[in-house]
């Protein structure tokens, strides 16, 4: 026979405490025929009459013989419908020594959920007080069981979440707005860093304070990247910040070293491949050019011309790839001149106008704010402008002009090129500047290698500038490509 420890059953203890206020003693009759009660909450009569410690049904019957018959009747109710009660008649309890220590008691058996409960209290048969006591105990037990179920659900949910975090390679931090680590998880093992300021854990993230503020103010996700040396190897990490509440931010740190390594290997392979291909294709171009000058028949000249065109396209692609690689790797050096943005753009436009005129298009000047001084390589800026204008020329209908303007914009000098082409869908706008971006409408591959915008972005980023496109084809035709350099 097993006797449960009362401490294992908080619900019963609460119920017993409450029932003690009504001078009523309550215990649970378990499958093992055991009784449970708490010595600390026994009513006065019980404490004196029953030894207030855990015991069995047999112990109880020995103290209150009347209950032997009552418990036989009660069994039917315990196995019956929820909430049904069985009430005994009055019986006397005495300690057998002194008639002054006699009590007129009554027992009630009832079932609440899986629990079989036995109440023993002063005889109150049929009184309002008795009904109140029973109702109160029922409410208490149901509320407690609902709470227990919620706790179990929460505990399961938390265990699931912890399990997920444990297998994830990412490390997750909950940060307060001032940067204090409130909680963290992720990865197989972690030191306890709660309470630390995140600067002491990730000092590489110089702008983390600003990022937390921005993240909470805008309610948007922000990303920072950093490099950390572990042993003798550099590891690359990406930290993503998402707002959780008014003053808490979730920071997820992901190790991107593998992806970065793959990217580097890919870039190196591309550079080697381009270098290796450049020489033979240059050779082909040279030979075909020589052949064309050799007085070929019309048909042969046609085929040689096609060959030459293809070879030149291939060579152009290789040169552009190598340009891009040089800019991205930092090998391409840019000069830095203090120069007025409007003047620089005007010079670039002169070059573009010639191309536009040849294509039968018109370039119009919009607003040209003067006095916007930037530090830039003039040739590089012109290159970006020409690329964007050439791009616009490809997609603008013949009778529509392209408008170029230069304005001040949030600490930048922004140059905009507005066309009246088909526009770029929102979902494609971010990918447009990626290498060989293939959009659904085929825009990027209509002509060229699809590298112009990537080169433009690389140049602008090397100048700590920004580049982008604004368009909403569902509302209006056209796109505005823009780039911006920091103002001095």
């Amino acid at each position, binding site marked *: 026979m097993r006797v449960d420890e009362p401490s294992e059953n908080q619900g019963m203890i609460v119920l017993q405490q409450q029932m003690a206020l009504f001078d009523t003693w309550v215990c649970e009759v378990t499958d093992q025929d055991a009784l449970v009660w708490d010595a600390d909450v026994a009513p006065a009569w019980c404490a004196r009459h029953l030894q207030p410690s855990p015991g069995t049904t047999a112990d109880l019957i020995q103290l209150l013989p009347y209950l032997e018959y009552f418990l036989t009747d009660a069994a039917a109710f315990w196995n019956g419908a929820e909430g049904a009660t069985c009430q005994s008649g009055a019986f006397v309890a005495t300690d057998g020594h002194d008639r002054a220590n006699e009590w007129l008691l009554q027992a009630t058996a009832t079932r609440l959920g899986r629990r079989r409960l036995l109440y023993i209290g002063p005889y109150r048969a049929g009184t309002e007080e008795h009904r109140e006591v029973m109702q109160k105990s029922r409410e208490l037990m149901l509320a407690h069981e609902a709470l227990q179920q919620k706790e179990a659900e929460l505990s399961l949910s938390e265990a699931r979440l912890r399990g997920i975090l444990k297998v994830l390679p990412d490390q997750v931090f909950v940060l307060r707005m001032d940067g204090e680590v409130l909680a963290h998880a992720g990865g197989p093992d972690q030191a306890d860093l709660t309470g630390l300021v995140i600067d002491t*854990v990730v000092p590489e993230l110089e702008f983390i304070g600003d990022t937390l503020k921005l993240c909470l103010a805008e309610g948007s996700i922000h990303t920072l990247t950093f490099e950390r*040396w572990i042993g003798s190897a550099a590891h690359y990490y990406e930290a993503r910040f998402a707002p959780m509440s008014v003053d808490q931010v979730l920071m997820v740190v992901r190790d991107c070293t593998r992806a970065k390594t793959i990217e580097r290997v890919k870039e190196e392979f591309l550079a080697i491949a381009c270098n290796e291909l450049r020489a033979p294709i240059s050779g082909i171009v040279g030979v075909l050019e020589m052949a064309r000058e050799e007085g070929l028949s019309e048909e042969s000249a046609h085929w040689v011309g096609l060959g030459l065109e293809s070879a030149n396209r291939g060579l152009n692609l290789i040169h552009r790839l190598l340009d891009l690689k040089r800019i991205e790797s930092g090998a391409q050096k840019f000069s830095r001149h203090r120069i007025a943005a409007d003047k620089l753009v005007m010079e670039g436009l002169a070059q573009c106008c010639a191309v536009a005129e040849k294509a039968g298009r018109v370039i119009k000047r919009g607003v040209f704010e003067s006095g916007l001084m930037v530090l830039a390589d003039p040739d590089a800026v012109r290159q970006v402008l020409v690329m964007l204008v050439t791009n616009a020329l490809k997609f603008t209908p013949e009778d529509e002009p392209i408008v170029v303007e230069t304005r001040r914009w949030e600490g930048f000098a922004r140059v905009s090129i507005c066309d009246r082409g088909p526009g770029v869908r929102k979902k494609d706008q971010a990918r447009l500047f990626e290498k060989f971006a293939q959009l659904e409408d085929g825009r990027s591959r209509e002509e060229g290698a699809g590298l112009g915008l990537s080169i433009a972005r690389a140049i602008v980023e090397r100048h700590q500038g920004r580049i982008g496109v604004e368009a909403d084809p569902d509302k209006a035709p056209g796109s505005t490509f823009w780039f911006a350099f920091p103002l001095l």
Partner: protein
Amino acid sequence: MLQKKVCLLGSFSVGKTSLIAQFVHGIFGEKYLTTIGVKIDKRRVTTEKGETTLVIWDLNGQDDLQKVRLANLRGSSGFLFVVDGTRPATLNVVLELDALVQREMGALPRLLLLNKCDLQDEWLLEASRVEELRAAGWHVKRTSAKTGEQVAEAFGALAEMMVR
């Protein structure tokens, strides 16, 4: 509450990780709990300026001049340079590391720990050499990560120097 980043620097196998394990967890041995690839531990200490949390970085694998990455030292308020008293050559590494740190980060609070003082029979670092270091301005403590001797005192002394 004040939080101070502390880095332990020294040659391989001088006992950096064990010193941290002894100070933070009260055990001798290597405890590898990492955060974003780095072993970071914390412990609260009481200084004359009040409570301070030491955020202790164990730069495992960055054991000599060539391997120490200055980026990992960023934000440090003090350093514990660790020498193995049974390997006098580890002192030379520490002196080089100290010169590098001073050059790149300026004069920050630092302490020199002569570790493994429980190995008296194997101790080779001469007392005269230690006196020279003291005369040169080093705060020196003989520690044992194994027995815990002077470990808490060393971290405590550095904490006091950092909050001053």
